């Protein structure tokens, strides 16, 4: 995922910046980038894009006209893809916005263009049998109040995760668990980067859910599959370790009706997205 974008002017002045991920050391980073831009002014990159690793991130940079363009992305990201996006952004800026920046005028409309180029869409499918808590998990992820009455999902319910999670538009596909809708599952999980298999942590349900793991591995072999051992507050619940052993996928505990699990679950999804990317890249 692209974490931040910076454009520095001829005097290494900040012309534009956008940060999708929070950073604790922004000031230090900006100082570093100003020095980098200053240094790049003395070398000829021949319009090429280069990158360097920096902790868990990768810094991509290029110079066009007198502007220095810097992208910070995750190490796991595909470098070619980031370079392609950077190319798009540079072209857009030089063509339509550089004259405004030269004249010190506001870059109206540029922000939307940046989002168009930098924001990726990530599909996360939530799969599981009826009544295991898929829709409750969806509500939890979206930070919504839980409905008091159980209303079974029809087909699929598609919702976005609120914007606060990175610059990736995470689209959650909550698939209906009723058996009559099982004919839709294979089609609905197409192109998912992450598939979450939700169980209610009972032995019977977990054993049944093994079929879902097989289905996912067959239909979307490149997707990262994670298990959720939901309803851990119930006395009959198997431990997440046991559920993971049965399903043979990394599995995490959850009480979907408990809001305190929200951040943890979002982190799990984020990690799954990154791990999925890294695995795809390695294969």
């Amino acid at each position, binding site marked *: 995922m692209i974490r931040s974008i910076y454009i520095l002017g001829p005097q290494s002045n900040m012309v534009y910046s956008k940060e999708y991920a929070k950073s604790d050391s922004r000031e230090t980073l900006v100082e570093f980038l100003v020095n980098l831009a200053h240094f790049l002014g003395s070398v000829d990159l021949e319009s090429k894009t280069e990158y360097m690793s920096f902790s868990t991130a990768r810094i991509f940079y290029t110079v066009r006209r007198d502007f220095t363009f810097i992208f910070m992305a995750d190490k796991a990201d595909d470098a070619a893809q980031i370079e392609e996006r950077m190319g798009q952004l540079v072209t857009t800026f030089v063509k339509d916005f550089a004259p405004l920046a030269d004249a010190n005028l506001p870059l109206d409309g540029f922000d939307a263009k940046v989002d168009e180029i930098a924001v990726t869409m990530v*599909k996360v499918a939530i799969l599981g049998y009826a009544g295991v808590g898929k829709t409750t998990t969806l509500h939890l992820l979206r930070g919504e109040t839980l409905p008091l009455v159980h209303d079974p999902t*029809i087909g699929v319910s*598609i919702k976005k995760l609120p914007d606060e999670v990175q610059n990736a538009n995470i689209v959650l596909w909550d698939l209906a668990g009723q058996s009559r*809708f099982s*004919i*839709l599952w294979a089609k609905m999980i*197409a*192109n998912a980067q992450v598939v979450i298999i939700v169980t209610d942590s009972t032995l019977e349900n977990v054993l049944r859910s093994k079929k879902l793991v097989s289905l996912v591995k067959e239909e979307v072999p490149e997707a990262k599959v994670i298990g959720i051992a939901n309803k851990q507050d119930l006395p009959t619940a198997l431990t997440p370790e046991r559920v993971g052993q049965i399903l043979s996928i990394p599995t995490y505990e959850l009480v979907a009706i408990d809001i305190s699990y929200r951040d943890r679950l979002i982190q799990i999804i984020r990690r799954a997205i990154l791990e999925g990317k890294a695995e795809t890249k390695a294969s």
Partner: protein
Amino acid sequence: MPEAVFVVHLDDYQGFIVEKRYPASFTLNEKVLNLIFYEHEKESKENLRYTEIESFRVASFVDKAHHGWMVCFVLGPEEQLESLRRPILGMGRLILELMIEAPETVRLEHILERQSSLDEIGEEQKYAQVFLTPSSALLLEKMESEGVEKAAKISIWLKGQVQTDSVDLREVIKPLMDSGLVKVEVIGKTTETVFLLRDLFGYRAPPVKAITKAKESVPQLAAKYLEQVTQFFTPPPPSKGYNPTIPSDDPNSPVFEDRERISRVLSKSLRYTVLNCLREEPLTTRQIADKTELPEEVVQNALSTLQSDHVTAEIGEGTWALLTDPVMETFMPEFILPVIAKKLSAKEIGPDIARRHLELLSEAWSGRK
């Protein structure tokens, strides 16, 4: 006439997207879309389904070639699907093709008012599918030499040819079966046998009908038109012109390449509609648009694409004509009769299979010229 029409696309990321709707005030929710989609998935053989959801009575059209797209017509309280089946299918086909090829040209209200439609895929288009699926074309060649063969044996041969075990004979043979070139029957207890009934030849014919008609309808352009066609088929030496009957064993020969090209032309419904229109006589873009009820920009695009494929030519200011007429011709495969006899005497096939093959050939060709 349906009260409303909407076009839905199931995007792998964003889910159901209502791409077009008429009237603009018409609203619907995710549940309705889900249930319409579910109806089609439940019964995937039919491309037109009727569903009653909430207060809506919906006739929805899908086409396997365009997965994830649905054209939905909301019927009025008095309307019955059966009486509207034909126009709805025609409008559905047209809307879907236009949404894929030129979405910006789609005016649902016009289509609905005029009940503009697109014909069902014709025989020629079915034949074209054979040459567009490389393994199916390969299978046809095999059947041309074998005449009749056990499905199991063909399956093994096919796996060897395409170097993979995952190839499914049923899928490969489908275009041949759909177009009636082969028939598969179980002979005896379990022997699934494939019979060749028709052979297929795809080529460009001179547009004789249009040339003749041009002398009456556009006499001032007729000579120039004839000259352009002649130039294509029989140019002065040393150019060779177009001759699809020159035998070639090389699968990369221009004849094979061209066969795929004309198959592609025929398989695209909008282009095919324009091409079909020009088979009669040269016409202007406007005249084609009027005849076919296609938007003028779609006609213009189709003409340009066909021109780059050497199918159409602009013979005068804004007047278009066929330069070549892509044809798919089937014929009786007489050459397999000695093959059947030989296989029978060598006991490669039993008399029941040989007899059945002759019966099938006779059924397929009796009464035909």
